[in-house]
């Protein structure tokens, strides 16, 4: 993977708990363009976290990301908040697009909670450039609203809430009355995404019109031990509770590409040739999971029978 070296050229801590970084090429060259809604995986103090790019993606001179400080997270966001300083260099992967606007949509309905606003800022900028019909519904905690001025400038149909009840009422009304051809984009905590997609589905939204950007999965339970066999070598071993398949394979010297290690990015996908899979990731589609021939080794686990991975 061609890693980008990026230098921190600005830090904005105006909004409580949220640090906005401007990252640029050390020599001042333009950075690779990206599809609106893309994210980069940033190496932050030994961890790798995915952050949405907030620009419109067209020949950017800088990447701007906003990082919410997660006090009880794995430590990546704390490192960015507490350790990273102006002028420091960070390593990041190339922009990955997993939340792109559907260009033939008649309208784009963006629904964001908290720091989930970041990919929507990118969508709004691109929508403004190309004259797309875009509506934004945004809820944030009082005093914790990022990009409030920016989104107000970028969109004519922007509705910002701090009260859950008023937000829910407007959301339901919006979901119930969108012109045919509208696509829905949701970003926020997992429970928020479940609420919005549940409401949309009850109002008849088909899956193909609903697009999600997850922050990451909830903390997962350690799971049960299970047996794994590596198809190429025949090696068979037990993956203990609390240890991921990915970690066990790495410990045994297998090289498995990985990035986020929390079931989001899709990098550590392994082909499965036999055995049941307990899927716990956010990456594979329902159809993929049903097919049962691939496992996200960082979070998903095997069942009672032996899980054979095609390594």
């Amino acid at each position, binding site marked *: 993977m061609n890693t980008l070296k990026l230098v921190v050229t600005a830090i904005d801590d105006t909004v409580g708990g949220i640090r906005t970084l401007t990252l640029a090429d050390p020599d001042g060259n333009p950075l690779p363009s990206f599809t609106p809604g893309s994210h980069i995986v940033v190496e932050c103090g030994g961890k790798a976290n995915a952050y949405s790019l907030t620009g419109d993606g067209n020949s950017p001179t800088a990447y701007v990301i906003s990082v919410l400080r997660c006090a009880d997270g794995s430590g990546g966001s704390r490192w960015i908040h507490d350790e990273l300083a102006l002028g420091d260099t960070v390593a990041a992967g190339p922009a990955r697009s997993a939340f792109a606007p559907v260009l033939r949509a008649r309208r784009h309905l963006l629904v964001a909670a908290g720091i989930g606003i970041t990919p929507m800022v990118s969508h709004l900028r691109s929508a403004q450039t190309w004259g797309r019909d875009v509506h934004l519904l945004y809820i944030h905690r009082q005093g914790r609203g990022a990009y409030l001025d920016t989104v107000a400038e970028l969109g004519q149909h922007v509705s910002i809430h701090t009260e859950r009840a008023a937000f829910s009422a407007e959301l339901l009304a919006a979901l119930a009355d969108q012109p045919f051809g509208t696509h*829905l984009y949701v970003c926020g905590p997992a429970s928020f995404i479940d609420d919005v997609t549940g409401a949309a589905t009850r109002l008849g*939204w*088909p899956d193909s019109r609903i697009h999600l950007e997850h922050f990451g999965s909830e903390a997962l339970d350690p799971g049960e031990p299970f047996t794994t066999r590596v198809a190429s070598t025949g090696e068979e071993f037990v993956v203990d509770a609390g240890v991921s398949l990915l970690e066990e394979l790495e410990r045994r010297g297998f090289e498995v590409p990985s990035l986020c290690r929390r079931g989001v990015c899709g990098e550590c996908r392994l082909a499965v040739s036999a055995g049941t899979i307990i899927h716990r990731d956010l990456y594979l589609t329902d159809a993929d999971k049903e097919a049962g021939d691939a496992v996200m080794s960082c979070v998903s686990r095997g069942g009672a029978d032996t899980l054979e991975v095609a390594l």
Partner: protein
Amino acid sequence: MRPDLELTSVPVWALNPTRPGADLSGRAWTIIAFGPHGADIAQTWIDQIASVHGESAVRLHRCDDGTQCDDGTASAIEALTADLVDARVGWRLMMAGPADACLRLRGAAGALGVADDEMTVASTDDDARTVHCVHCGAVTRAQVQLDQVLPCSSCARKLLVYHHVSRRAGTYLGFMVDAEQPAEVPS
């Protein structure tokens, strides 16, 4: 060699009469029924929707089954276009009739922005096909099966009906089956 047809562009319902239940996940429906057989299926769908949602959100359009001409699909597309003017997300299209007419209506619906998971198709028969001649561009409508040969109505080339159907036009790809045989010397 005949491929696994489920992996081609030919939908399962274009190969065998297929009768799925109504899509009850929507909030409003347009049902287009071609011919009397299509109307039977439409009535079943309306009953299924009524038992869950009530009938008010259903619009039924009965069209000719197009066995004689294209008029059935033309009026179906007209009705669909009119319904979409004020449709909201949550709307579904269900169509029942000969696979040939459904393929054409599906193409038109796709062009109007209807997604695959917003369409339900019931096919009442799969005997007729519209075949696009890749040599002259004409389309020929006939009672013909996949892998059979029919003469192009315009250029008279012998067209093999290939297992590819255009999502846009609903026509099967037909190509000259004897292109590599030496031409007969006219006597």
